[in-house]
């Protein structure tokens, strides 16, 4: 077993285990931290696949941004040390069943399918390649989606500000 393989399994275990814990633990802070670990595990998998740029984006946006946002909102809405309310057992069972069925179906279909392989020359995901593509308006360029996303982010920010800056809280 090579080192690379061992690293892969470790990352996989990190991702899945902390993912499971993130959705099951009853302490909300721990849930956030497990989510963080899971996201880091995914970033690790990107590194492992040598997609360094995506891994970096993952860490910057998710770990540095979204998780922090979530932790802040936990601060705003939660008393420290309070356990999360329990879910009804019936709901848990149905959910587990539905999720498992979905998982089984997907895995069966994925495993039955043989993916084609291509012999063409791979393009390395270097930062310069990505940058060229990102701002290109030619074929295989991504300038337009880039603009669309920027509009979306702008609109989302405006929406957030309007909602969050509500003048005065009403009914207690």
């Amino acid at each position: 077993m090579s080192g690379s393989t061992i690293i892969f399994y470790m990352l996989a275990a990190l991702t899945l285990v902390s993912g499971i814990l993130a959705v099951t633990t009853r302490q909300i802070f721990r849930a956030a931290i497990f989510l963080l670990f899971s996201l880091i595990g995914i970033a690790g998998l990107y590194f492992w696949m040598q997609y360094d740029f995506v891994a970096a984006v993952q860490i910057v946006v998710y770990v540095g941004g979204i998780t922090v946002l979530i932790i802040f909102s936990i601060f705003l809405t939660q008393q420290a040390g309070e356990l999360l309310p329990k879910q009804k057992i019936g709901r848990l069972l149905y959910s587990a069943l539905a999720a498992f069925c979905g998982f089984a179906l997907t895995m069966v279909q994925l495993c039955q399918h043989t993916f084609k392989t291509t012999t063409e020359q791979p393009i390395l995901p270097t930062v310069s390649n990505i940058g060229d593509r990102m701002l290109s308006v030619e074929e295989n360029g991504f300038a337009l989606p880039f603009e669309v996303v920027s509009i979306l982010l702008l609109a989302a920010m405006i929406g957030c500000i309007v909602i969050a800056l509500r003048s005065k809280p009403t009914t207690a």
Partner: protein
Amino acid sequence: MKNEKLLSIIQFLLLGNFIVGFFFNQTGTLFGGLFTTNALMAFEKSILSLGVYLISLLFSDWLKKSEHMPEFFILMLAALLGMFFMISSGSLLMFFLSLELSTIPVAAMANFDLEKKISSEASMKMILSSAFSSGILLFGISLIYGVTGTINFAEIPTLLDGSPLQILAFVFLFTAFAFKLSIVPFHLWTADVYEGAPMAVTSFLSVISKGSIAFILLTTLYKVFAPMQEIWYNMVMLLSIITMIVGNLFALRQQNIKRFLAFSSIAQVGFILVGLSSNSIQGTSSVVYFVLIYVFSNLAAFGVAGAIAQQTGKERIDDFRGLYQHNPFISWILALALFSLAGIPPTAGFFGKLFLITAGASKGNYLFIIVAALNLIISLYYYLRVIRAVFMDKNEHPIEKIILNPSAKLGMIICGAGIVLVGLLSCIYDYITALTV
């Protein structure tokens, strides 16, 4: 008042936007195939622009009083832009991004009745459901990408062969459309969100948003997934039947006018699927034509309900009893709208449904058509119920005279004229057919 002037300017610009849409209808692609356009797409966009213009007219009362009117328009126009991109999208990436662009701002808009609890609740339900749905959609897209190696609409059809994994991917992808169009069983968010959101947002969601998805669904099914035609035909048929039945059954028992319209619009979507299933030129033109009519009819209904809710706070159908006594004008507009939604001649809705049915029947699957038409009759029950409440039922304290401001009145007149004229002027349908070919 500052808002008032601004609103007039915005309305003027929106009208301009609608008119300009008719001048640029070339065919072509941009950004290496990511953005495509042709005359039909331009027309579809014009329908959506018209809808947005009408919303700005019909809900001007609410908008004027709203503290955040400029932001409301920014978000609504961002969503409209998203729909334009979506209609023109040439790849799954553009489709996904513009779908989100047309969803996330609307979710924020649903919260614009900031003081109301149910508005926040609606907004929360919408953003969570749509996040869930986009998760499923993305999984589907990733499978399509894995199987075909491309996300371009032009290349995908050549690489599809209907293998089980592709079916799975297609189902995942299709449910995103189903979610936005509120096809049963992916519709459950609809009524709650419609009820809680401000009326202007509800009408935007119910008319513009659904219309745009119906348009892109045409492209997706007819072009991108053309090789899997048989599978999607059966799927559309199945969902269409369930959607009509469930939409009708729930509409029967609603008391709140917004929930009522929500379920009635679910049933309408089931009907759109009937025409859509035909996979022909007639299918495209009947769906586009129906959406045009649907814009007029549904906006008229929402406009009237909005005007009443704005001034009296009444949203229950029982409160509408005897509306005709003091408000003949809006009663007639409402009656026209409901007649059109119910598909009663000579309103445009009758012709719209007729063309959808004829398009659906061209496949020769009469059982499907019978079920569709039976549902049309069931729907009469509840549409007539509202008509009856408005015109026939007695009420000790009917709704007092509603004072409409001029732009709302203009909006209602446009809707009413649209409902009558779009059906009678055959040139409109001919025009759409000509664009389709």
